[in-house]
């Protein structure tokens, strides 16, 4: 067993340039899989980013708000009803709407999403950085915080600038990081007071609930539903995120598009692997024929080829990860989507690459039959 593996590895490493070329060939499939999965996860993550950033135990929303892209609001008195439910320590209303931001570079009015909430440091509903700094900025003066991960259409916005929001100048109090999604291009954040002074009749789009110490999530959820008129839905942030991902996959063909891309990556990985191993076996036919002539069984030679296939899956994966890291970073910067390689994706791609290389190795074994000891003479 050990000799088989050793032979396979020695055949591979004796020409390092060739090994790199073969690894790069295998890496093509790996890169495709990483890019496709990265884009899919990036889009899904962006659509559910509000749920990921919530600082609280429960999110309460209008039942009609079947996903976070819907604009169904709650009645403001329901926030007070939720606060009165047993087990609720704190409830924070969050307002969401869109406004026209005039970009300072081109003077064009661009639609941007505005989030507003009471700027209390202890109960900020969204994780936008240091709560004390965010709270101090919003409490101190009229103005707004700008999401620096917004798409470039809004121009270069810096703290201290006066930017027209719905044609009225408003100072930029600071910068935070959130990021756009596929539908919305950017975000700004205001205090509840600032927002209600502009839209006095605004209703909250959700309420973020913090539980009292020791309170049971299920009991509080039930209490909130009982306390309100029955038109709200209560989720944990994790549930809201899962619901958003499921809703995005259901309402758009992105799962199909990127799923086809991943399968194509696997097919291309297998084909490239086969080509590489076929060439490797073809180039060593004389050596393999010599081994046969001195009595090594086909099984031994097959083992050596399979060892090469598995070793190449490892080196191809490493090269693929390095390329994908660079490519993902580039795509993330260009699209402003949270594209990255997470361990789960890496494990999936590694396993898929291993399977495709093993399959390619299996197919290339047929070529070993062409190694004929008689041809040596």
């Amino acid at each position, binding site marked *: 067993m050990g000799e088989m593996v050793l032979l396979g590895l020695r055949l591979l490493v004796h020409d390092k340039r060739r090994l790199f070329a073969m690894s790069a*060939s295998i890496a*093509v499939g790996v*890169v*495709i899989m990483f*890019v496709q999965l990265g*884009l899919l996860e990036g889009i899904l993550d962006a659509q559910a980013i509000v749920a990921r950033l919530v600082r609280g135990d429960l999110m309460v929303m209008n039942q*009609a708000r079947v996903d976070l892209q*819907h604009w169904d609001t709650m009645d403001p008195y329901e926030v007070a009803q939720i606060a009165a439910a047993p087990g609720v320590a704190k409830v924070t209303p969050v307002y969401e709407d*869109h406004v*026209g931001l005039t970009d300072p570079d081109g003077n*064009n*009015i*661009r*639609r941007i999403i505005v989030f507003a909430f009471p700027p209390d440091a202890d109960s900020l509903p969204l994780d936008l950085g240091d709560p004390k700094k965010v709270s101090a900025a919003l409490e101190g003066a009229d103005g707004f915080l700008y999401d620096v991960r917004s*798409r470039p*259409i809004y121009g270069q916005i810096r703290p201290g600038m006066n930017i027209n929001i719905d044609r009225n100048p408003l100072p930029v109090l600071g910068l935070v990081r959130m990021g756009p999604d*596929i539908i919305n*291009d950017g975000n700004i954040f205001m205090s509840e007071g600032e927002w209600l002074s502009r839209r006095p009749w605004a209703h909250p789009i959700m309420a973020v609930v913090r539980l009292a110490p020791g309170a049971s999530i299920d009991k509080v959820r039930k209490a909130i539903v009982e306390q309100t008129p029955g038109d709200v839905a209560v989720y944990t942030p994790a549930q809201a995120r899962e619901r958003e991902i499921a809703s995005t996959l259901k*309402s758009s*063909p992105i799962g199909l598009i990127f799923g*086809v*891309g991943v399968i*194509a990556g696997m*097919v*291309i990985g297998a*084909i*490239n692997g*086969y*080509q*590489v191993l*076929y*060439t490797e076996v*073809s*180039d060593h*036919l004389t050596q393999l024929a010599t081994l046969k002539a001195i009595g090594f069984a086909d099984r031994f030679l097959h083992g050596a080829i399979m060892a090469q296939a598995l070793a190449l899956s490892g080196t191809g994966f490493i090269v693929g990860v390095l390329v994908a890291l660079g490519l993902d970073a580039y*795509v993330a910067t*260009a*699209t*402003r*989507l949270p594209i990255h390689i997470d361990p789960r994706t890496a494990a999936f791609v590694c396993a898929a690459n291993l399977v495709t290389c093993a399959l390619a190795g299996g*197919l290339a074994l*047929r070529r070993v039959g*062409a190694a004929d000891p008689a*041809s040596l003479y």
Partner: protein
Amino acid sequence: MPPFIARRRPPVESPSGDVGAYRLSEPLADSSAGTRRTWPLLRDLKPCVSVAVANLFDQRARLIAAVSGVAVSLFLLLLQISFVTAFSQKVTELYDDFDFDIVIVPDSYQIMLSFDTMNRIVLDIARATGDVADTYGLNVDVLRWKIVPTDAEGRSMLIGIDAPAGFVRDKAIRDAWPVLRTPHTLVSDRYSQKGAGPVTPGSVVEINDERLTMRGQFKLGQFFYSEGAALVRNVDFPRLTGRDPRNISIGLVKLNPGVSPEKAREDIAAALPSGTRVLTKSQLEKQERAYFFSTKPIGFIMDISMIISCLIGGVIILQVLSTEIANRMGEYAVLKAIGAGPALIYGIGLSQAAVVSFGGLAPALVLGWLVLAVVQMGTHLNTGLALPIVLEMCGITAVLAAAAAAIVVRRVDRADPASLY
């Protein structure tokens, strides 16, 4: 030794200039005397292709794998090109249903579904410039309607239209106008998604506590704005949406014959108050498409996917050619030894590249045609395989094959007849 074509069809020199089964276009003596042509002429093509095909088919399993790889990459490329083309048409489809030269929109306008409006008086101001033959008001808003009798809710884009006059190009929308004059009526988009509820004639929905019956259909299918769409008259639109009846979302302008759109655009812009933008039809369509393909990440994602697909296809062709040439250096040396010129030698490489790449294109087109037809049925995007896209794919495939051949084929120069001895 790997099997090679020369073993099965040994080249035999004959006074007529035949080498084995293949007739060379130039007498062998010409090339040995130093008359070298680099590129094959048409008459050289047959032996080149014959040798290329025979060489490739010598290892059928590997050929199938290579062609499959090229097919997968070209299939992906075809899907992406078709999606981009179809989506690009779809984003301006409503505008394509109208005949106009200039558009007036609020200055916050980014795409058709913008929420700002402007006073209809802008149309009268435009008329006063003297450049304008006629004007037309469009209203657009997204709202929630209640499906009767289930009380389920659907989201729909409501489009308010004026009397068609000479503006409406789409027959279904022209036919909708007399139907819409019946009270409490709307005309639904046949391509609405399920979430909008039933849209067949006779279906009833409730908007703003008013029950409306669908009495006709038109075709739009802009699923990226809302689940459904419906037409109403502009006189009914404000009542249903709560909008100011004096306002419109978009103003369409038709110019007098002979008036330059750019001059008219400048004249109208100068006459209008602030808060409005004036664009020619081509500027509007360009802006609309730019929003989806430049501002949104869709365009970038598609571009990068297309580049990756092309690279994969190219790398696979390159790999096959490279291996083929490396494995057959002996045979190439024999061909050189018996006097074959570069036309034949390079022509074989180029032909192999063409066979592998176009061999992959054929199944990619067939598979793509099937998948795109299914996508067309599901999304109502015009993704059917059209001739311009087929020609574009042929062009890309030819470039990939030529590029791969250009990179690899000169390695044949290393084939040395002296090495045979």
